């Protein structure tokens, strides 16, 4: 399929770059032009530095000209979620608290991407401090879904997913604490991978919930996700939770491994509350695997219904601790109204944080506070053990699990903003993966009647990303969902004609 460079896969682009049919400068300029054309409507970016991106692209072209290409990512513009440090670039977490913060050093993933020659491109919007499922909680304005601008792109990595879907980057990095890569990938019709906890270094990632956070790639295809994962994975002495494990060539593993696999269908993930259109698309994917000779087994994850409760206790407890560092003293927002040092903490935090962050700090502080710690936090950690055990039990019989990503389609902006619990409940199918520390991938598996993307979730065994990517790749190769792109002219015209566009556009 002939398409604009910004909509081609990394695998296709790398070939053209190697054959000198395309330069990184041309590709990067093309992505910049596209971003300037569509981002006023989508608002995926908090900021971007055109000159810096073009300088990186020129360096890439010079390497190739000298026969020193660093590999398939050399010269490819990859967008970065604005919680991942890139030296000299803003690092805001979409918060007033860090509005003027500039990264003094590179995160390990940024260093590795640069080492692979990638062009680190722009700062992608998110729910403030990665807390949310819609990217509406950004202090700098909500990101919109490229398939329908009245709807949310998911979150918290909504900027990463939307930018990729709209052709504003060739891949992107996000972070996933309870679904923040997989759910926006599903909402925007792209591939999103949350690796096993410990596979990718968190050094230079702004911490939200340290026992759950993990960085991962967004890409148009499973193969592209494999390429980016290969570049960023691996042990890092700067992250003490980083795991020592051999990193295979994920792309060749995806091509090599052909199954058939034993796939588990957790019955708890297909119950009440699942949108019938999403259920039907996932059922069709199950049929596909069965027809390919895979053994499909129903499995049970009996503690699924306690996942959201355990998650929102553990995640908020860890966030209240991690965000204690934002005190207005060493960096970040400092109140000008403070009477003394302690008052400075209270006011700086009140002025710097948005509503959802405050809500979670309060909840997290409460569940850790004297007299409540055992009843909430310790109990939640024990329930977490049971949830993790459910998955490990299931893996005695199957290679991977197959589920929906989100029980609901991308919803309209504002629809759930006033009811935090309703928003939390939408994370039901993604949260278990984080609590158990497993790898999970979202792969496009269809569209609703109204044209909104649907995502399929495959959940793998710990550190078995190669197998997981291969299983996902087998589905992707046999379907054309991953080649579909939103018609941005149509989306923008529809938005301009709508009442929402007239009021807020």
């Amino acid at each position, binding site marked *: 399929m002939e398409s604009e460079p910004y909509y081609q896969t990394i695998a296709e682009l790398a070939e053209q770059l190697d054959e000198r049919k395309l330069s990184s400068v041309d590709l990067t300029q093309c992505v910049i032009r596209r971003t300037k054309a569509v981002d006023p409507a989508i608002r995926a970016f908090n900021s971007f530095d055109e000159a810096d991106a073009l300088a990186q692209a020129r360096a890439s072209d010079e390497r190739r000209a000298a026969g020193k290409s660093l590999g398939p990512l050399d010269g490819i513009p990859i967008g970065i979620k604005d919680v991942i440090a890139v030296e000299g670039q803003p690092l805001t977490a979409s918060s007033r608290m860090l509005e*003027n*913060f*500039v990264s*003094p*050093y590179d995160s390990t993933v940024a260093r590795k991407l640069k080492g692979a020659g990638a062009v680190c491109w722009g700062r992608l919007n998110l729910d403030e401090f990665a807390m949310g499922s819609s990217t509406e909680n950004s202090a700098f304005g909500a990101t919109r879904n490229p398939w329908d601008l009245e709807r949310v792109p998911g979150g918290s990595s909504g900027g990463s997913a939307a930018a990729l879907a709209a052709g504003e980057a060739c891949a992107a990095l996000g972070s996933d604490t309870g679904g923040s890569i997989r759910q926006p990938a599903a909402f925007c019709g792209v591939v999103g991978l949350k690796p*096993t*906890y*410990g596979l990718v270094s968190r050094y230079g990632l702004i911490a939200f919930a340290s*026992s759950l956070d993990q960085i991962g790639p967004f890409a148009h295809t499973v193969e592209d996700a494999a390429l980016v994962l290969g570049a960023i994975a691996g042990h890092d*002495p700067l992250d*003490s*939770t980083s795991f020592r494990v051999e990193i295979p060539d994920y792309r060749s593993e995806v091509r090599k491994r052909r199954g058939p696999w034993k796939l588990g269908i957790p019955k708890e993930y297909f119950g009440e509350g699942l949108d019938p259109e999403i259920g039907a698309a996932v059922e069709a994917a199950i049929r596909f695997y069965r027809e390919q000779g895979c053994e499909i087994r129903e499995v049970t994850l009996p*503690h699924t*219904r*306690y996942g*959201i*409760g355990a998650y*929102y*206790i553990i995640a908020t407890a860890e966030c*209240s601790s991690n965000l*204690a560092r934002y005190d207005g*003293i*060493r*960096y*970040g927002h*400092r109140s000008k109204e*403070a009477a003394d*040092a*302690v008052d*400075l903490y*209270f006011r700086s*935090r*009140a002025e710097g*944080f948005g509503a959802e962050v*405050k*809500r979670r*700090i*309060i909840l997290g*502080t*409460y569940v850790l*506070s004297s*007299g*409540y710690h*055992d*009843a909430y936090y*310790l*109990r939640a*950690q*024990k*329930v*977490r*053990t*049971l949830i*993790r055990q459910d998955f490990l039990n299931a893996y005695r019989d199957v290679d991977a699990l197959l589920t929906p990503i989100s029980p609901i389609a991308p919803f309209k902006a504002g629809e759930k903003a006033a*009811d*935090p*619990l309703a928003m939390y409940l939408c994370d039901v199918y993604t949260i278990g993966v984080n609590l*158990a*520390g497993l790898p999970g991938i979202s792969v496009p598996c269809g569209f609703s009647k109204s044209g909104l993307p649907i995502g399929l979730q495959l959940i793998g065994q*710990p550190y078995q990303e190669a197998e997981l990517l291969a299983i996902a790749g087998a589905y992707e190769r046999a379907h054309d969902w991953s080649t579909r792109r939103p018609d941005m002219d149509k989306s923008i015209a529809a938005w301009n004609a709508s009442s929402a566009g007239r009021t807020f556009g």
Partner: protein
Amino acid sequence: MDKGKQTSDPATLDIDHIAKLARLALTAEEKARFSEQLGDVLAYVEQLKEVDITGVEPTAHAFPVYNVWADDVPRPALPVEVALRNAPSQRDNMIVVPKVVE
């Protein structure tokens, strides 16, 4: 030991006390709204009490990694001026803060 009996009625979340522990100044409107919304969340998480956790060890990290040591060798660190670049107020290579001792 698990002290389930210490759980109080979730509706009694003392928002003034918790906000003070969190060093977070909240407006009266925020206090009212957060109390109500977090009351819903706490009522929801009450269902965790149904789970039999007798003899279950807590999970702090999904894949326990213990005793990770770094070699005790000096490494280059951020230069002072780079480390201070994001400080809200600085003077003579130090961060300026409000007076804490009279």
